[in-house]
């Protein structure tokens, strides 16, 4: 998820939000790379969802992606879950 692909995530998420979705679960189990442009998209979408009373729930962080969330403190900012199932049930 880099400078080229992050805007696609943001566009698709915003399309869901425009259709009335207020919470999204993002499964990052297969994601091996994320830069600050990807983080920027997550923060932007999460803020929009929070304003609508919902949340961006992130699950299955591994490897470099988990490391990036730890370095930036976002591991404490977002609701993070170990599995898709727990994210769907969660908060």
């Amino acid at each position, binding site marked *: 998820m880099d400078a080229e692909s992050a805007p696609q995530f943001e566009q698709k998420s915003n399309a869901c939000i425009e259709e009335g979705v207020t919470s999204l679960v993002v499964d990052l189990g297969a994601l091996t790379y994320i*830069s600050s442009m990807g983080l920027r998209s997550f923060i932007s979408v999460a803020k929009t969802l929070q304003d609508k009373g919902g949340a961006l729930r992130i699950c299955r962080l591994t490897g470099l992606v988990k490391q990036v969330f730890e370095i930036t403190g976002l591991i404490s900012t977002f609701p993070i879950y170990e599995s898709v199932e727990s994210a769907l049930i969660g908060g």
Partner: protein
Amino acid sequence: MTMAAKAASLKAILEFVRKGAMEASLPESRIGELELVIEEIVMNACNHAYPDDAGVVTITYSVPTPGELSVEVADQGVEFNPLTAEPPDLTLDLGRRPIGGLGILLMKTLATSLTYRRECGWNRLTLGISAGS
């Protein structure tokens, strides 16, 4: 190599730097971190060096010793030293968190060394990355 300073150039730049990483025998986990730092440096140059006009970035690398790679990213844009930027406040909750500002933190944390110099109209950021840390 010299490329247009835009996101579409990233893929070719990362492929070029990956060659250097292979020559330096960096482990795969470290190559992922290297690519992340390079993306942050190049996107910084795109966004800050040339805010209005199109420009180019020049990337060179060397292998000072086995297990160590040095990469320089240079541009001729507006003078900008990312290493002097204010660090972000990581304790803010989501509502008060700015959307951006994390790239410089990532490059500083993951690089083994980072140095900036302004030289004859060029911004030159040199990244050192070693196998071990």
